C-alpha cells in the first residue's frame, strides 16, 4: 500500500489539497482504507482536517447539527438523539461504529449508507465550505462532489414521528437486505398529514419512495388503508444485487417490510 496522509488545520486548505488527482478525504477510514488494503491503487494520498468542530454534536431549538466526523457510536449514545439511535446502531459492529463517520456514511454505496437513509427521511441539509444543499440533491450528485462535507443539520423529529428499520439476515450486525426510514406526521384524527419515506439498497444510493408517500396522505395507519402505499413501494426502484440478496428478492420483500414499519410491527 502506498498511501500518504496529510493533516490540515482548516477545511479550506484540505479542500485545496483534495483537488489533486488520486487524493481522497479520510473520514473514519472504514471504506477508504478497506479499499486501499484490497489493492485499490486509485488512491495515493489522503487528507484529513483536525478542526474540532467537525467532531461536535450541537442540539438547540429543536435542531441538531452533527459534524461530519461525528462517529455513529457517538450518535447512538447521545441522549438527545435517542430517536436516531436505531439508525446509528444499524451500522456495522461496535468497532466499525466507533470509527465510521456521519460524513462517510453519506458517500457509502449500497448496501451501505443505512444512516444516510435516515438523514434522507429527515430531510437533512448537508453543509460544506461552499454552502448548504438538501440531502437529496447531495446524494444525487455525490460522485461529482470533490468538496469536504463539514456537517449535517436537521430538525429533530418528534419521538413517535420517526421510524427506522434495517432488514438483515445475520443478527445483530449483518449487512442490509434493505433499510427503510420514515418521517410521518399524523393529524388529530390519525390520518397521515405528511410522509417522507427513504429506502436503502433499493438503488445504488438512498432514494425516496415517492409513490408510497403520496398514497399514504389522508390515510390511517391500518392494514387496509396503507395497502395502496405498500403496493406502490417499489415504484421507481432498481434494487442492487449482491451476495446478501438479489434485486428480485429485495423488490419482493420491500412491501412486506414497509407494511410492518407503517403498522409498527417491527420485531428487533
Amino acid at each position, binding site marked *: 500500500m502506498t498511501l500518504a496522509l496529510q493533516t490540515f488545520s482548516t477545511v479550506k486548505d484540505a479542500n485545496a489539497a483534495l483537488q489533486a488527482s488520486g487524493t481522497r478525504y479520510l473520514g473514519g477510514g472504514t471504506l477508504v482504507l478497506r479499499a486501499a*488494503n484490497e489493492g485499490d491503487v486509485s488512491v495515493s494520498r489522503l487528507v484529513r482536517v483536525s478542526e474540532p468542530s467537525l467532531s461536535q454534536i450541537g442540539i438547540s431549538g429543536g435542531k441538531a447539527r452533527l459534524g461530519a466526523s461525528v462517529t455513529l457510536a457517538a450518535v447512538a449514545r447521545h441522549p438527545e438523539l435517542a430517536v436516531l439511535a436505531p439508525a446509528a446502531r444499524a451500522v456495522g459492529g461496535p468497532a466499525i461504529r466507533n470509527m465510521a463517520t456521519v460524513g462517510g456514511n453519506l458517500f457509502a454505496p449500497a448496501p451501505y449508507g443505512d444512516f444516510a437513509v435516515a438523514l434522507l427521511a429527515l430531510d437533512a441539509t448537508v453543509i460544506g465550505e461552499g454552502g448548504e444543499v438538501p440531502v437529496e440533491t447531495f446524494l444525487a450528485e455525490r460522485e461529482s462532489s470533490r468538496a469536504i462535507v463539514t456537517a449535517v443539520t436537521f430538525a429533530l423529529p418528534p419521538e413517535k414521528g420517526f421510524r427506522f428499520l434495517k432488514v438483515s439476515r445475520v443478527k445483530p450486525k449483518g449487512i442490509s437486505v434493505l433499510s427503510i426510514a420514515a418521517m410521518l406526521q399524523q393529524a388529530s384524527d390519525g390520518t397521515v398529514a405528511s410522509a417522507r419515506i427513504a429506502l436503502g439498497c433499493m438503488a445504488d444510493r438512498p432514494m425516496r419512495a415517492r409513490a408510497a408517500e403520496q398514497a399514504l396522505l389522508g390515510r390511517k395507519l391500518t392494514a387496509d388503508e396503507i395497502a395502496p402505499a405498500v403496493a406502490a413501494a417499489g415504484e421507481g426502484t432498481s434494487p442492487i444485487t449482491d451476495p446478501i440478496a438479489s434485486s428480485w428478492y429485495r423488490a419482493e420483500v420491500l412491501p412486506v417490510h414497509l407494511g410492518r414499519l407503517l403498522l409498527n410491527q417491527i420485531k428487533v
Partner: protein
Amino acid sequence: MAKVPVQFTLNGSEKAEFVDSGTALLNALRDKIGDTSPKGGCHQGTCGACSVIIDGELRLSCLTLAETCNGAAIITTAGLAEAGVLHPLQRAFLDAFATQCGFCTPGMIMAAKVLLDRTPNPSRQDVVEALSGNICRCTGYEPIIQAVLTAARTNSQNAA
C-alpha cells in the same frame, strides 16, 4: 516514501517510531514495535481479529493509520497479564475452551474488555452485541460467550 514520527503509549509504555506515512496501525504494531497480539485476518474490517483499544474505544487496527494515533493510549491483549498472572478474561477463555486455533482470541478479548469495563454485569445479549464484529471460525461462539460471562462473574466476586 515519507517517514512520519508517531508517539503513543502502548500498554502503559511510551513508544516513539518513524513509520511510512499511510502505514496501518496493525502493521506498525506487529512489524515495527513487535506486539504481535493483534492478528491480521481480513484487513477489511470484517473479522475483528485486529481489534485494539484506543483511548478506551474498540477500534480496528487494520483500518486505522498509525500516524492518526499520535498521543493516544493503546491497549492490546499482550498488555493484559500483570506480573505473569493472566487477566480474568484470558483465564476464562482458557478454562472454558473458548480458544481453539486462537486466531480470533485477542480481538475477542479486546471487544470483551471494553464491554466489561463499561458494563461489569452484562447480559448474554450484551455479550453477543459486543462481540458481533468478531468472527471465530472454530468455537461456534457459545464457549466464548460463556467465558466472557464467567470473567464478569469473577470480576464482580473480586470486587466484592
